[in-house]
C-alpha cells in the first residue's frame, strides 16, 4: 500500500495570521538555546558550524607546523630547531591534517548542508552529532597540545613499529594512539548518522536516483569510513597493548611482525585518501552545474565512478609497501589495481568538463578555485600514475617526490575544492557572500605559492632527498630546490590567510545575500536570507534532480507551509523518515533537542582515553563509569521515547506513525551500521591471527593453546544466550512480559558464563601473552568477545529495566529489536572466535 502524492497542491485556506503562528511555533521549537546553554545546542546548523570552525583551526595549527618545517629546511645544515622538535612537528603536521582536518571537515560540512539538501529538518540523531563534535574537540586539543609539552608523537603519521613501539617513542606514541582512537570513534559515529541521513531522511518522492550528487558521495564516503577505520582501530588496540603491557604483536623476536601494522594501517590509510578526496569532489559536483547553469552531464557516470573509486580504494593498500620485499606477483597486481583507480577518477573530472561544455559558464570565485583544483589535482593524479608503477616507486618511495605527489593530490583534490565550497555555501551559514576581491587575491597567492612550493619537491626527491629529514647536506644539489620550496610555502600561507580574513572579517554592515544567490537548482538554496532555525519551512515533495530550476513555484509553496510538517503544534522537533529507495514517507520522527548529555558523555569518555595514556588506572575506571552512566541516561531519556499519540497528520492527507521499530526505525539501522563497523574491526583481528599463521612454520611456536574444551563451552553458552534472546523477542511480541523478563535473565546469565568460559581457556592453560605473539593474539580475540559479552549484559539489563518500567512493551519494542540485532553480530563473533582459538590449532596440527 503506497501513498499517492497529490498531483497539485490543494488550495491554501489558512489566513496569514495562521501561517505566521505556524512559523512561530516552528521557530520556537528549533531555536538554539541562549547564553551559556547555547553550548547544549544540537541543531545541525550550530554543531556543523562549530565542527567546521574547529577543523579549520586545527588546519591552521598544522599549517604553522608546516611553515616551521619548511623554514628549517630552507638552507642545508640549518639549526633553527632540534631534530627532536622537527620530528614532532612533521608527525603532528601529517596527523592533524589527516585526522583533525581532512576527515572531520567532510563530516562537519555534511552535517551542515546534507539535511538542507534533503529538505530534512535535521539529521536523525542530533545529539550524536553533538557528541561526535565534543569528542573531536577534546581529542584534538589533547593531541595538538602535546607539542607544547615536548611530548608530541614523533614517529611519523604512519607510526611504524618497532620505532613507534620503542621506549624512544615515549608518551607521544600513546597520545597518538589513544587520542586518535577516541576521534576515530567520533568519526564512525558521524558516518553512521550520515548514512542514515542519506538513506532515510530524504524528502518524500526523492527517489535514490534523484538525490543530489553530494548525497551520493556522502553515502559512499561514510560507507568507506565504516570499513576503513575499524582496521586502524584494531591496529591501535594491538599497538597499545604492546606499548602498555608488552604484548609482542610487532616484535619480531617474539613471533610478531612489524609488517602487520603496515597492512592494517594502509588498509585504512589508502581508502582514507579517497575518504578525504571524494567529499571534496562532491562539492565540485554541486558547484559546477550551478555555474554552468545546467544539470550535470552524466549523473549515472559520476555516481558509478565514485562507487568504483570507493571499492577500488580498498584494493590498493600494498602500493604503500612496494619496497618491503613482497613478491613480484603482488607488486604487479597492486600496480595494476592502483593504475585502475585513475580511470573512475578521470571519469569524474571529465563529467565536470563535459557539464561546462554543454553549458555556459558564469565566472565566480568558487569556479576559480574549482578550476585551480583541477589544474593541481591532475598533476597529482599523473604523478600518482607514476608512483603506482612498482619500478618507479622503488626510486620515488619515501622521497620528496612522494611529498610533492601527495600534496598535489590533497591540496588540489581537497583543499582547493573546500575553499570553493566555502565561498559557495557561505551564504547559507553567514547570510552574506564573501568578498570576490579577497577571493581572487587569495586564489592567486595560493595557486602560485602552492606550485612554487611543491613542484621543486619532485626533483628534490629524485635527487635523493628522503622524506622526514630534519636537515640535508650542502653540495648534493638540494639547496636551491629547498629554498624555492620554502618561499613558495610562505606565499601559499599568505593566500590561506587572505581567505581566512575574507571569512572572519566583520560583515555586519553588508547587505544580506539574495535568496538562492547563485541561482542554483538544489534544495539547500531554499534557505531564507537571513536563515531560520527550522531548516526548511515545510518538507516538499521532490520529483526532479534540480527542483528549484524545474519548479519555479517551489520556494513560494515551501515558504507558505503548503507541504508536509508545516507546524510544530505539539512542541516537538519533527522530521520525516522515508524509505531507502523510493523515499516513500514512513514515519514522523521526533528528534531530540538541546542537552548537556552529549557534552558530558564525550568529556567522560575523553577522560577515559586521556587517563589511560598516563596509566592512571583508578581515574580511568571512574571516568569509564561516568561515561557509561551518561550514555545510559541519554539512551533512557531520549531514545525510544513512547509518544503521546501513535500517529500524526503531517499534512496533505498523510498520516504517519510516530513510533516504529525493527528495520523501519532509524535506531535499528544505526545498530546495523555500527555493528558492521564493529565486525570489520573484529575481522581485522582475525586477519592478524591468520597473518601470524602464514608467516611462521609453526605459529604457536610450541606454546600450548587454550585447549578445545573451554572455547567450545564458551561457544555453547553464547549460542544458547543468542537463542534465548530470539525467544525473548518472540515472547515480547506475543505480549508475555513475564516470559520476556525470565528469558532476559537467562540470556544474561548465559552471556556471563560464556564470557567467563572464554577467558578461562587461555587462563587455565597458562598462556602468557608477553612471551609470544600466539598467546597474545588468542587473548585479544577472547577478550574482544568477552567485552562484547559485557556490553550485551548491559543491554539485557537495560531491556529488563525497560520492561519493568513500562518503557519496553509489546507495542513499543525498539530496544528489544535493536538488542537482538546486536546479538546476531555477537553470535557470529563468538562463533568465529571460539572456533578459531579452540579448533584451528588442532586442525593445523593434524593437517600438517
Amino acid at each position: 500500500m503506497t501513498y499517492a502524492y497529490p498531483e497539485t497542491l490543494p488550495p491554501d485556506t489558512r489566513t496569514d495570521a495562521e501561517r505566521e503562528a505556524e512559523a512561530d511555533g516552528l521557530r520556537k521549537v528549533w531555536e538554539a538555546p541562549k547564553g551559556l546553554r547555547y553550548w547544549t545546542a544540537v541543531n545541525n546548523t550550530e554543531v556543523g558550524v562549530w565542527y567546521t570552525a574547529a577543523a579549520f583551526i586545527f588546519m591552521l595549527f598544522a599549517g604553522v607546523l608546516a611553515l616551521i618545517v619548511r623554514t628549517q629546511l630552507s638552507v642545508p645544515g640549518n639549526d633553527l630547531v632540534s631534530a627532536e622538535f622537527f620530528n614532532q612537528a612533521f608527525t603532528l603536521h601529517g596527523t592533524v591534517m589527516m585526522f583533525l582536518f581532512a576527515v572531520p571537515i567532510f563530516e562537519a560540512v555534511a552535517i551542515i548542508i546534507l539535511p538542507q539538501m534533503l529538505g530534512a529538518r535535521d539529521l536523525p540523531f542530533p545529539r550524536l552529532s553533538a557528541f561526535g563534535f565534543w569528542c573531536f574537540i577534546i581529542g584534538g586539543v589533547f593531541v595538538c597540545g602535546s607539542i607544547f609539552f615536548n611530548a608530541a608523537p614523533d614517529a611519523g603519521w604512519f607510526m611504524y613499529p618497532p620505532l613507534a613501539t620503542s621506549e624512544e617513542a615515549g608518551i607521544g606514541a600513546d597520545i597518538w594512539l589513544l587520542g586518535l582512537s577516541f576521534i576515530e570513534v567520533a568519526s564512525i559515529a558521524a558516518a553512521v548518522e550520515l548514512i542514515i541521513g542519506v538513506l532515510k531522511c530524504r524528502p518524500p518522492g526523492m527517489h535514490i536516483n534523484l538525490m543530489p550528487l553530494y548525497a551520493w558521495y556522502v553515502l559512499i564516503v561514510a560507507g568507506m569510513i565504516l570499513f576503513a577505520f575499524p582496521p586502524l582501530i584494531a591496529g591501535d588496540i594491538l599497538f597499545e597493548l604492546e606499548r602498555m603491557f608488552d604484548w609482542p604483536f610487532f616484535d619480531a623476536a617474539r613471533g610478531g611482525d612489524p609488517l602487520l601494522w603496515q597492512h592494517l594501517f594502509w588498509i585504512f590509510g589508502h581508502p582514507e585518501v579517497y575518504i578525504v578526496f571524494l567529499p571534496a569532489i562532491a562539492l565540485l559536483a554541486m558547484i559546477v552545474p550551478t555555474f554552468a547553469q545546467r544539470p550535470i552531464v552524466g549523473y549515472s557516470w559520476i555516481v558509478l565512478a565514485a562507487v568504483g573509486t570507493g571499492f577500488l580504494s580498498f584494493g590498493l593498500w600494498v602500493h604503500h609497501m612496494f619496497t618491503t620485499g613482497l613478491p613480484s606477483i603482488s607488486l604487479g597486481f597492486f600496480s595494476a589495481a592502483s593504475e585502475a583507480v585513475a580511470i573512475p577518477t578521470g571519469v569524474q573530472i571529465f563529467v565536470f568538463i563535459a557539464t561546462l561544455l554543454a553549458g555556459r559558464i558564469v565566472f565566480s570565485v568558487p569556479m576559480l578555485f574549482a578550476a585551480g583544483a583541477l589544474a593541481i589535482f591532475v598533476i597529482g593524479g599523473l604523478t600518482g600514475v607514476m608512483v603506482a608503477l612498482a619500478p618507479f616507486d622503488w626510486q620515488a618511495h619515501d622521497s620528496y617526490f612522494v611529498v610533492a605527489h601527495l600534496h598535489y593530490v590533497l591540496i588540489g583534490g581537497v583543499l582547493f575544492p573546500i575553499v570553493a565550497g566555502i565561498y559557495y555555501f557561505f551564504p547559507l551559514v553567514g547570510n552574506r557572500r564573501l568578498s570576490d576581491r579577497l577571493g581572487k587575491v587569495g586564489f592567486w597567492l595560493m595557486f602560485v605559492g602552492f606550485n612554487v612550493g611543491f613542484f621543486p619537491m619532485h626533483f628534490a626527491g629524485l635527487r635523493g632527498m628522503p622524506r622526514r629529514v630534519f636537515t640535508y647536506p650542502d653540495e648534493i644539489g638540494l639547496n636551491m630546490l629547498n629554498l624555492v620550496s620554502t618561499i613558495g610555502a610562505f606565499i601559499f600561507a599568505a593566500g590561506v590567510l587572505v581567505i581566512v580574513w575574507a571569512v572572519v572579517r566583520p560583515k555586519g554592515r553588508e547587505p544580506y545575500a539574495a535568496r538562492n544567490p547563485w541561482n542554483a537548482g538544489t534544495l539547500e538554496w531554499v534557505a531564507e536570507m537571513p536563515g531560520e532555525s527550522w531548516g526548511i519551512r515545510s518538507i516538499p515533495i521532490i520529483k526532479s534532480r534540480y527542483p528549484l530550476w524545474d519548479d519555479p513555484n517551489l520556494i513560494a509553496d515551501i515558504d507558505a507551509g503548503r507541504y508536509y510538517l508545516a507546524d510544530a503544534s505539539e512542541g516537538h522537533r519533527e522530521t520525516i523518515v522515508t524509505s531507502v529507495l523510493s523515499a516513500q514517507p514512513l514515519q514522523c520522527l521526533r528528534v531530540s533537542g538541546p542537552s548537556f548529555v552529549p557534552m558530558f558523555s564525550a568529556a567522560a569518555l575523553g577522560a577515559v582515553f586521556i587517563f589511560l595514556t598516563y596509566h592512571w588506572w583508578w581515574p580511568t575506571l571512574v571516568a569509564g563509569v561516568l561515561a557509561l552512566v551518561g550514555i545510559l541516561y541519554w539512551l533512557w531519556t531520549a531514545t525510544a521515547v513512547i509518544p503521546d499519540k501513535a500517529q500524526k497528520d503531517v499534512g496533505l492527507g498523510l498520516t504517519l506513525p510516530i513510533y516504529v521499530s525493527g528495520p523501519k526505525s532509524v535506531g535499528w539501522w544505526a545498530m546495523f551500521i555500527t555493528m558492521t563497523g564493529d565486525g570489520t574491526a573484529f575481522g581485522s583481528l582475525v586477519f592478524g591471527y591468520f597473518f601470524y599463521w602464514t608467516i611462521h612454520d609453526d605459529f604457536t611456536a610450541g606454546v600450548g593453546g587454550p585447549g578445545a574444551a573451554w572455547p567450545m563451552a564458551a561457544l555453547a553458552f553464547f549460542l544458547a544466550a543468542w537463542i534465548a534472546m530470539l525467544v525473548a523477542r518472540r515472547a515480547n511480541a506475543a505480549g508475555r512480559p513475564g516470559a520476556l523478563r525470565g528469558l532476559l535473565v537467562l540470556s544474561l546469565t548465559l552471556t556471563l558464563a560464556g564470557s567467563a568460559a572464554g577467558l578461562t581457556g587461555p587462563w587455565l592453560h597458562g598462556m602468557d601473552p608477553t612471551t609470544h605473539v600466539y598467546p597474545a593474539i588468542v587473548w585479544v580475540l577472547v577478550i574482544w568477545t568477552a567485552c562484547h559479552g559485557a556490553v550485551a549484559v548491559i543491554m539485557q539489563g537495560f531491556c529488563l529495566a525497560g520492561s519493568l518500567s513500562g518503557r519496553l512493551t509489546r507495542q513499543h519494542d525498539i530496544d528489544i529489536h535493536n538488542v537482538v540485532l546486536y546479538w546476531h553480530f555477537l553470535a557470529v563473533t563468538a562463533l568465529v572466535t571460539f572456533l578459531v582459538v579452540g579448533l584451528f590449532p588442532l586442525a593445523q596440527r593434524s593437517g600438517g
Partner: protein
Amino acid sequence: MLTSSPFLAGCAGIQSALDPAGVEADAVAALFWVMVAGAAVIWLAVMGVLYYATRRDRVVHSETFAGRVILWAGAILPTLILTALLAYGLSMMPRLRPWDARAAEDAPLRIEVVGEQFWWRVTYHRDGMEPVVSANEIRMPVGERVTFTLRSADVIHAFWIPSLGGKMDMIPGRENTLTLEATKAGIYRGPCAEFCGSSHALMALAAVVMETGAFDEWLARQAEPSPGVGENEAGRAAFLANGCGACHAVAGTEANGTIGPDLSHLGSRVTLGAGIVENSKAGIGRFIAETDHVKPGVRMPAYRALPDEEIDAIAGWLKGLE
C-alpha cells in the same frame, strides 16, 4: 642544537635517480622521462579542454557530445594509456629485480648490510674468501651484479643508492634481497630512506664503485689488519685505555667490540659517522668529543671529558688505519 654545518658538507658523492650509474637506475630514469613526456601532453590537453570549456564565446555543445567526451577522454583513452604503461613498466621488473631466493646463496659477491640506529654494518661475502667486515660504506665492482642481503638490528631502515637503483626496506625479523649492477665507476651517496628516529637525516652511506681488479685488491687488503695499526703507539694506547674496544673492533688489536661500527680501515673510508662528517683527523676528533651534537640520539657517548691531546692521538691513529 646542530652546530655541525661545516661537517654536513662532507662530500659523500652524488645521489640522483636522474643521473643514473646503474642498470636499474638507467631503466627507471628512462621510464620516468617517458612518463613525464606523456604526463605533460595529457596535462596540457586537459587544461586546453578546460580552458575552452570555460570560454563564454563558443557554441554550447549538445549533451550527446558532452557524454562522448566523458566516454572517450574520461574512460577509454585513460584505459588504453594505462594498459600500455603497465605493460612497459611491469615488463622491466623480472630483469631489474629477479625473484629468485636461491640467487643470494650462489652470488659470487654478496654484501650483507644491517641497518642500525644510525649507521650501517657491512659484511662482504666474496667467493673463496672469509667474510670481510666493514661499516658505513659499500664498495662494489663495476659491471657485476652484486647481491645485497638487507636486515635490521633495531627499527625499520631502507637501503637506497639513487644513482644505482631503487630502495629496499630493512625490516626487523625479515631478510630482504636486492641486486644492483653499477655501470659507471664513481662515488655515490645513499641516504637511509625510512624514517628511523632522531638522526634519520644523518644516516647515509658512501657507495664506491670500482674497476673489478681494483675492487678485488681493495677487498684483499680489507681482509688483513691495516698497516697503520702498528703506528702512532700513543693513539692506539689511548684508544684501548679508554675502552673504545668494548664497542668497536680494530683488526690486529685486542679491540673486538661488535656494538658499534668496525674501525679496522677507518682512515680509508670516504666519510665518517655514516656519511655525515668529512674523514679527516679533525673530523674524527670532533666526532669523538661531540658525538651527541654531531649526531643526536646516537648510542655512543660524547668523550668531551677526555683531554684534547688524547682525542688528538686517537684521531691520528684512527686516521692512519688505511
